[in-house]
């Protein structure tokens, strides 16, 4: 597909999402979520489309997208692993766990492996403090992380 055709397709899919959701109260965040769900990230070319539809400026949409860590400006790996770095997990050895994960995957935080299998991200509290240290793989939470569980995670993302 040519570049232009690809961007026309992104525009039409984004427009469909926006049309469906713009009547919501406070529609910007739900639209951005849905767009990220659709494309795996929020493509830059969708920002002016959203702005025009909601009668707000490009700058405002950009401000919101860049404020929230969850919105990506490029696609993530096939899997996304979020490791909690907040206080409760830290108190249960979270820092060491995080370092082990990083080492096992061979990447740092905010990075994606070369084979595009996994993206590693920090998160600040998953609400799973009782089971600290915690992580979340592709939306599924995992509690009481230890060496075995890390190995399981690595196996899963590599498979």
């Amino acid at each position, binding site marked *: 597909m040519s570049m232009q055709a690809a961007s026309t397709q992104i525009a039409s899919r984004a427009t469909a999402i926006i049309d469906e959701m713009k009547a919501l109260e406070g529609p910007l965040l739900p639209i951005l979520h849905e767009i990220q769900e659709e494309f795996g990230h929020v493509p*830059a070319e969708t*920002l002016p489309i959203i702005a025009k539809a909601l009668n707000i*400026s*490009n*700058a405002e949409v*950009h*401000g919101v997208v860049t*404020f929230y860590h969850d919105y990506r400006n490029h696609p993530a790996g096939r899997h996304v692993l979020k490791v909690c770095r907040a206080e409760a997990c830290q108190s249960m050895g979270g820092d060491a766990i995080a370092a082990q994960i990083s080492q096992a995957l061979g990447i740092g935080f905010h990075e994606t492996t070369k084979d595009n299998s996994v993206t590693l991200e920090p998160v600040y509290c998953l609400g799973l403090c009782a089971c600290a240290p915690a992580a979340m793989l592709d939306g599924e939470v995992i509690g009481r992380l230890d060496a075995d569980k890390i190995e399981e995670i690595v196996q899963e993302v590599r498979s």
Partner: protein
Amino acid sequence: MGLVHEIDYGTPASKAEKQITLSVDGFTVTVPEGTSIMRASMEAGIAIPKLCATDMVDAFGSCRLCLVEIEGRNGTPSSCTTPVAPGMVVHTQTGRLKDIRRGVMELYISDHPLDCLTCAANGDCELQTQAGVVGLRDVRYGYEGDNHVFKKMDGAENFKWMAKDESNPYFTYDPSKCIVCSRCVRACEEVQGTFALTIEGRGFGSRVSPGMHQPFIDSECVSCGACVQACPTATLTEKSVIQIGQPEHSVVTTCAYCGVGCSFKAEMRGDELVRMVPYKDGKANRGHSCVKGRFAYGYATHKERILNPMIREKITDPWREVSWEEALTHTANEFRRLQYQYGRTAIGGITSSRCTNEETYLVQKLIRQGFLNNNVDTCARVCHSPTGYGLGQTYGTSAGTQDFDSVEDSDVIMVIGANPSAAHPVFASRMKKRIRQGAKLIVLDPRVTETVDSVHAKADYHLPLKPGTNVAVVTSLAHVIVTEGLFDEQFIRERCDWSEFEDYAGFVSDERHSPEQVEKLSGVPAEKIREAARLYATGGNGAIYYGLGVTEHSQGSTTVIAIANLAMLTGNIGRRGVGVNPLRGQNNVQGSCDMGSFPHELPGYRHISGDAVRDIYESLWGVKLDNEPGLRIPNMLDAAVEGTFKGIYIQGEDILQSDPDTKHVSAGLAAMECVVVHDLFLNETARYAHVFLPGSTFLEKDGTFTNAERRINRVRKVMAPKNGFADWEVTQKLAQAMGLNWNYQHPSEIMDEIAQTTPSFAKVSYDYLDKMGSVQWPCNEAAPEGTPIMHIDHFVRGKGKFIRTEYVATDEKTGPRFPLLLTTGRILSQYNVGAQTRRTENVVWHSEDRLEVHPHDAENRGIRDGDWVRLQSRAGETTLRALITDRVSPGVVYTTFHHPDTQANVITTDFSDWATNCPEYKVTAVQVAPSNGPSEWQEEYEDLSQRSRKIATLEAAE
């Protein structure tokens, strides 16, 4: 002299009536409810340290420097976000506060370069000032670790550092100096209403971002300068300040672009203009500005400006530079010869809407007293003459009814045939602010203009009428109001002539004015007309603002009357928030009309046939005045072609470019024997001139401009005229050369004569203006402080007059040969014929006029975006490049007229308003076809331009 100092109260004033008394550091202060502690404290003379607060925008509470302690309350609240309360006891300076402020400041400075001595803001930096204020003596943190200051850290790239953005021609953005106070972002949103800036990211990564992390020039920024004004550091700085340095004195004056009439401080270093800064006490602009007034003054020193008088025998000769004396004697002799040879009425003149009231007054005086005829006209002929006629007939005055502040109380704003976002940007910002607060907007315009779909201020109703159908649509609004019983009977009975109303009501109730019928000819869906009418009639305070899209039609005067009727029907006249307001195009077009520039009127709109009025001037000027109206501009040109009109003095107007049917204008000018052009540049009209008198800019003279709200604003001289004389001096010298005994030493003496002879200006004098800042006429014994709102208890003419408004389609109709309708307009960065703005950096935004064509019409004709197209009407043809857009409806094309090589007025016809001859610029039937390049006319024209602009080089002395 020094800089004009303005107090920054930190937060905007509260409008509440209830007063609150509190104590600040032991001083008692009383302020309106809702005032912040910061502002109250400033009122008491105590300045609380601050960085993120400034009184142009709402409080934000982010810098944490303005903390105070309040007895009986915990903690240290920020004084900008905390409103006053009765009996509150505030301490602004305690040991605890001092420590906190110093700590905060230390953090700010730890991520800010310490290059103060070489910084452009040195001496005008709030960060520097506040560091001094809080007693910062040490920064313990150093610059190791993360920072935004250095390009490289220990030899490695610092990815947090961002390069300076110099893309805007007038200011720079240096992110390394930014303290992320958000003042620029808030100014862009709250003051300007463009929302072009945001804070991207979060925490330490927060940065100011134009658009989507774009250079300023590629973002949505309209370069109004509000952000530069708001910035407390050197992050956003005028390039002129970087080049020249800080100003040392400033003078308050008035912008010379549009009819908003913004007040500015001209900040000077010696006689060099460093920058123009909008003046907060300016009652028209309240501290805001646009790209033209704030930045586009470079034309004043442009190399093409002509500084020496020039004459030539024939227009094919090269120009010859001569002394002022020779030029003026030559002109006087020529004018006398023409009158002797062809008769008293064979010469005339045109006053300028760009010059001061005093200068305009002198030009009409020269014509009436010196030429002994009334052949005087002004460019208002081609813009707002129907306003003068329509509002004069219905209400009794030829001017808008409100001040600009009034829009703050409007609930429903109807904009007809105007695009304030482009043509009156500072008013547009004030209007949009009100819309964001909840006012409703109705726009009648053939195009989807910037006013229709502006962010956060979208029109609730856009009625995209076909050009030329204004009368039908506005009358149809009245039809709905009358037939649905939405009119204000009490108001009409008290304030208007009831029997005239009954006649009018009967007229508009006819089925042919119903939205359903009008839909067929205007293309506006009937339901939209009905809903818009209901909203205007019942939505609270309804205000109408209109522009040249109303007046520049064959039925321009009728539309103005229809608008006036609408306001009377609904009782929307005579108080704040309502009214009928023409948005005047030029800085002093109101004033030039006020000053007797029309052939039938003496100053103050008094008809020349009135014996009592003529008596006043006859006894003062010592001559007998002609009691018959003289020639209008089109009549002068007709008479010239016929051979009975031979000489003209044109001050500051380019009729060849701005008047309709260019070929007719050039034929008229070519038939004259002495054309005198008094202007800054060899403009298009000067191609046919025999005498060129160099003009002076608004920076080089004293005087007054009267803006669209009738406000008389002072213009103050900040530098000596580069051409030697202010325009009023040149006119005086010409009068003296013609034998008149004029001896004005200063423009204030001219104003004294105006006040002495014109009742609506009776109390106006320079002393009074200095004292009051500005006044709105009428300003006399009855209204000593001027008149912000007119027709308060009764109409000026007595009873408001309803007049029937029958729609008559223009003779300019589409047909098989010319199937499209052309309409014209403006763009934000350029001004009118562009003589000034084309000679500034503003050309980066608009370097050529483009023809907007709907995709449907373009496809039918095989036109792609950017293609050269031929635009052809019954009058002529030209070529320009196409811009494919759905802003215009199918069947309608649109262009701007800022560039002379486009020659849009070669296309426009000589149809004009039935009452005032205002040309029908806004409707021309045209055809559009692909083309290879410039038309024959454009090539000939370019060729003649080259030849006619030649100035003979002086022969070297032997």
